[in-house]
């Protein structure tokens, strides 16, 4: 009894312990694979569910928006800015050389039609919604948007010009489904 309780008995012919080691390693590896396979459904459970993914595109009618105005629509639970830029604002956005910007990007690649600017309205610093959608709101030093949380200034192309935010306001995937309708997502 004492022999079995204390591992290998004398004369078992198992001097290197290789057989036992193999069994321990094989069952341990099998257990690890099983645990990982069992963990995956619990991890994936946290990912967006089918009904959330189904809501991932938004149709917008932009016809009522006058030049110089902007609207905010919701896409995937976040604000999307749709702004009809004036000729002066477009000119202002295109006047600067991209290389001089913190996050160099040409205005032409950020729009499909120069008049219409579509942006995800979430500050790239820490996720606040910048001001500037209404003419009465602060638009920052560059006439675009201003984030009141930590003072980031965006220009009329939604590019970061001043403040702690590292990136330009991102452009969501969208397309014009008609002259005045946009599908975001």
């Amino acid at each position, binding site marked *: *009894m004492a022999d079995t*309780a204390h591992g290998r008995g004398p004369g078992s012919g198992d001097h290197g312990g290789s057989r036992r080691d193999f069994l321990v390693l094989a069952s341990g590896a099998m257990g690890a694979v099983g645990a990982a396979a069992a963990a995956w*459904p*619990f991890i994936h*459970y*946290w990912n967006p*569910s089918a009904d*959330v993914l189904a809501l991932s595109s938004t149709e917008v009618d932009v016809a009522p928006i006058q030049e110089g105005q902007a609207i905010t629509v919701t896409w995937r639970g976040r604000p999307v800015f749709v702004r009809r830029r004036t000729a002066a604002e477009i000119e202002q956005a295109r006047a600067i050389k991209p290389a001089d910007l913190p996050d160099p990007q040409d205005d032409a690649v950020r729009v499909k039609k120069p008049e219409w600017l579509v942006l995800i309205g979430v500050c790239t610093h820490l996720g606040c919604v910048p001001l500037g959608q209404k003419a009465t709101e602060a638009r920052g030093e560059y006439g675009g948007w201003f984030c009141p949380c930590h003072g980031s200034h965006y220009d009329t192309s939604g590019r970061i010009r001043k403040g702690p935010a590292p990136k330009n306001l991102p452009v969501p995937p969208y397309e014009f489904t008609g002259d005045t309708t946009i599908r975001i997502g």
Partner: protein
Amino acid sequence: MSAPQSQNALIRWIDHRMPIFTFMHHELHEYPAPKNLSYWWNFGSLAGIVLVIMIVTGIWLAMHYTPHVDYAFQSVERIMRDVNYGWLIRYLHMNGASMFFLVVYIHLFRGMYYGSYKYPRELLWILGVVILLLMMATAFMGYVLPWGQMSFWGATVITNLFSAIPLFGDPIVTWLWGGFSVDNATLNRFFSLHYLLPFLIVGVVFLHLWALHRFGSNNPIGIDTKGPQDSIPFHPYYTIKDAFGTGVFLLVFAGFVFFAPNFFGEPDNYIPANPLVTPAHIVPEWYLLPFYAILRAIPDKLTGVIAMFGSILLLMALPWLDTSRVRSATYRPIYKQFFWVFVVDCLVLGYIGANPPEGWFIVIGRIATAYYFIHLLIIIPLLGKLERPLELPASISTPVIGSGAAQPQAARMEKP
């Protein structure tokens, strides 16, 4: 390998200040267990594993469940259809409840067969019955949460049991409901308690284990270990035996989850709750059926409720109802037969509980109910006085090793 001698300096540092590693080593590794434990002794650790599975899947379900009368049913259907692997986690939880009771009932009958409730394990047994009661309350409230027809009417019927209380019955039921019928307030408090009670169960499980480890496990022979020659360390001998049993159990569990997930369920619970229409035939989940049968066997409302709760509470008195000092039914030839009659009686009660209370079902239900109490209150106490038990072996090792022979069967065959 003991923690104080561990090679790891951090483990030694912690263990010196809070000897948790020494404790775990003592209780989970070197813990001496009788060397003759059979597979019937797997069901305690299995119950613990199912409890963990239930808590984990339950916490995950709560992440997508909405405890509101207008959304509860939809949120469960959303978990089933839209949430990633929601169907799997819900079916694990749903069938896990049935598996939990299956395992615990086997555990309980094993204790009855081998007299595990007798001195010095009475408190261990009582704590087990407390766990069973908490499990029943938890399971009942969990069944209400999907807010289907069976949920609603099960909640109505079970809470109405308390209306049998003289004088204060109706105010108590109103208080339980938080209104004048089972409604949103009821659903919310049931959700809250359904989340709380499993953690209370975990607490009582720790007390159960504490009491267990005071004297160690009973064993199939039912006599105490007489020294180190009668026991083996828990690890690796019983960890590996428990692990193997767990593997077999998980196969059965997975079989239900993947191939018959609604085997234990009622189709009516996939109809949203309707407070204006009672389903034609309402039954509780299978694990409550024997007690439901006892409730219905007695024509008087208050007596029926008392009998139903009494049938469970009476189990707590079993250590004192049983007057025999011999633990294992192996050495009690008459008790062994009555034990199996009692098992059949419980199964009959379950069968009656699943059927409508009419015709012969009523008669059989009453006989089976009467026998349940006769077994516990008359047969068990009398048997201890009247029965002549077989001679007990001198030690756990004797029936195995005998007089030098390795196996009794082999030894017997060799004899002329």
